[in-house]
């Protein structure tokens, strides 16, 4: 069995499960974001729910529309605050950051765990060697009532990453390369494991980026076998957490194993309006950038701020370019202030906003006008994602976004002197 199957079996109270089988599982934690909590609570009542099955396993995070700019969101958040109080749900985080950034930070994600969330990027957590996947609102409402959900045991595809990063290349570029080579449905309904000598050297922040992006290849969950880097991360963020390591039995537990030589990868950009529409950053120098969008569950961690500040130090944004920055969490924001990174970005001319999803999926400020071009370290270049459907969104690494914001057009960060 693959470790993913073993984790599912353990949460289904079974010794083993077969790939393709549908089983009922009880997750360790279920994340409800602001919208998810409002919808799920509503559907839970419609399903005849009265008391939530396991309030201690529910984590409510306000990240998409917090602080609210529309009255409908204020009203719905007020209702959610009342609802969680009435249900005895105490794990509540408003304004502390994006669910997928704070889950690993606060120790809700740990090796061997099963995590559900009302958001497709819940898969991010799987970098810690757990199974983490998005659920619909009705799914979560049913979980609230019954304490379990149905789950199909997925086939698993493994990407073995080897070679060395070229200058200016990051985990994000690997994810874009996979989208380019194998498409946006590279892994439909599958588990996606990252392994190989390069992954074993990767810090958790880079692993989180890889696993964050698996949903954008169609995957159910990511997976990285827990190792010393994982253990260190968990001991720092959840020192009291007991966890069970699971290991995959053999290579026959994979539906496919793909070798990827990272040395061949240059800084990449997904161009409008599909993630698989990928070009080299250096080929796109004629694309003028009106707005850089920096942050989100893909690119809002402290390491992203360090990379960006190293590029932006002592420089100014191009006169025609604006930059929206939303730290992924309060912890990231505070650390970036302590290290002087926020100051560097503001001195360069960036607007630094609240923690949360930022302009991605139209949550916070920074909407695009028709025909404007944006470059972002978020994960999706879908039409209309940051405002006008007539705008163009380019997806790249944090380094490429910072460098392009300074240049005012798309450039490769490899051409930039880092401070």
């Amino acid at each position, binding site marked *: 069995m693959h470790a993913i199957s073993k984790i599912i079996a353990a949460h289904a109270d079974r010794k083993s499960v077969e790939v393709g089988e549908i089983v009922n599982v009880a997750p360790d934690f279920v994340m409800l974001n602001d*919208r998810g909590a409002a919808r799920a609570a509503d559907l839970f009542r419609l399903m*005849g729910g009265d008391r939530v099955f396991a309030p201690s396993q529910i984590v409510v995070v306000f990240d998409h529309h917090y602080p609210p700019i529309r009255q409908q969101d204020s009203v719905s958040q007020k209702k959610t605050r009342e609802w969680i109080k009435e249900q005895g749900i105490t794990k509540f985080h408003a304004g502390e950051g994006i669910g997928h950034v704070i889950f690993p930070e606060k120790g809700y994600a740990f090796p061997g765990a099963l995590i559900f969330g009302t958001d497709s990027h819940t898969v991010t957590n799987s970098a810690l060697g757990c199974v983490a996947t998005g659920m619909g609102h009705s799914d979560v409402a049913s979980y609230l009532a019954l304490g379990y959900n149905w789950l199909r045991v997925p086939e698993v595809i493994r990407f073995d990453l080897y070679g060395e990063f070229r200058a200016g290349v990051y985990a994000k570029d690997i994810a874009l390369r996979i989208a380019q080579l194998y498409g946006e449905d590279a892994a439909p309904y599958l588990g996606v494991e990252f392994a190989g000598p390069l992954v074993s050297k990767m810090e958790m922040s880079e692993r989180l980026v890889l696993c964050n992006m698996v949903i954008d290849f169609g995957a159910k969950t990511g997976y990285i076998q827990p190792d010393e880097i994982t253990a260190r991360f968990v001991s720092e963020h959840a020192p009291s957490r007991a966890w069970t390591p699971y290991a995959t039995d053999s290579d026959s537990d994979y539906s496919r194993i793909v070798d990827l030589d990272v040395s061949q990868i240059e800084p990449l950009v997904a161009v409008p309006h599909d993630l698989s529409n990928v070009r080299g950053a250096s080929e796109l120098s004629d694309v003028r950038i009106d707005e850089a969008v920096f942050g989100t569950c893909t690119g809002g961690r402290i390491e992203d701020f360090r990379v960006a500040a190293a590029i932006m130090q002592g420089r100014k944004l191009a006169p025609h370019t604006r930059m929206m920055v939303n730290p992924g969490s309060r912890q990231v924001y505070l650390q970036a202030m302590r290290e002087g990174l926020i100051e560097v970005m503001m001195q360069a001319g960036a607007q630094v906003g609240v923690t949360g999803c930022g302009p991605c999926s139209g949550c916070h400020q920074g909407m695009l006008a028709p025909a404007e071009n944006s470059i972002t370290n978020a994960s*999706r270049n879908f039409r209309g994602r940051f405002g006008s459907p007539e705008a163009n969104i380019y997806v790249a690494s944090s380094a490429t976004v910072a460098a392009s914001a300074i240049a005012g057009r798309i450039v490769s960060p490899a051409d930039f002197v880092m401070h």
Partner: protein
Amino acid sequence: MHIKGPAWTFGRNVNTDLIYPKMWFRPTYAPGEMASHLMVGIDEEFPNKVKRGDVIVSGQNFGCGSSREEAAAAMKEAGIGAVIAPSFGRLFTRNCINVGLPVVVSPAIDEQVNQGDEIEIDLAQGFIRNLRSGYEARLPPMAPESLRLIQDGGIANYTRRVLEERRKAAADGGIKPE
């Protein structure tokens, strides 16, 4: 389960941002509200054109992207009989099953159907037919658990039933209520 209706066709990698744009998100919905915004990211007139019993046929990876359940729920509310594609986004598939909307995988179906073609599907017998062209294909078997959820009208009905069983068992002194 037997479905018959004219097809609306869409392309590949149609994401849920297009099927149900975020600007129409609400904390709660009045009856018919979600259906009135179905597919407006692609065609603003679609909610006025689509009729109950119509089917949607699309290219690969239909419903990819964001988890928004409204994409599936709006189709169910509009009375879409089935949604058919060579492959689907995982969350969209799940949401269709949970709202009781037949989500039908059929390889290369997008190459076999033109807009307006009359499509017939039988989930129990496992076939799809294009009644205009005569094209016919077997459907890959659907997991019995998923088929049952769709036939039951979705996860809400299932949950309601299990809750009632639990409450009855608790009232009979079988198990303690949670």
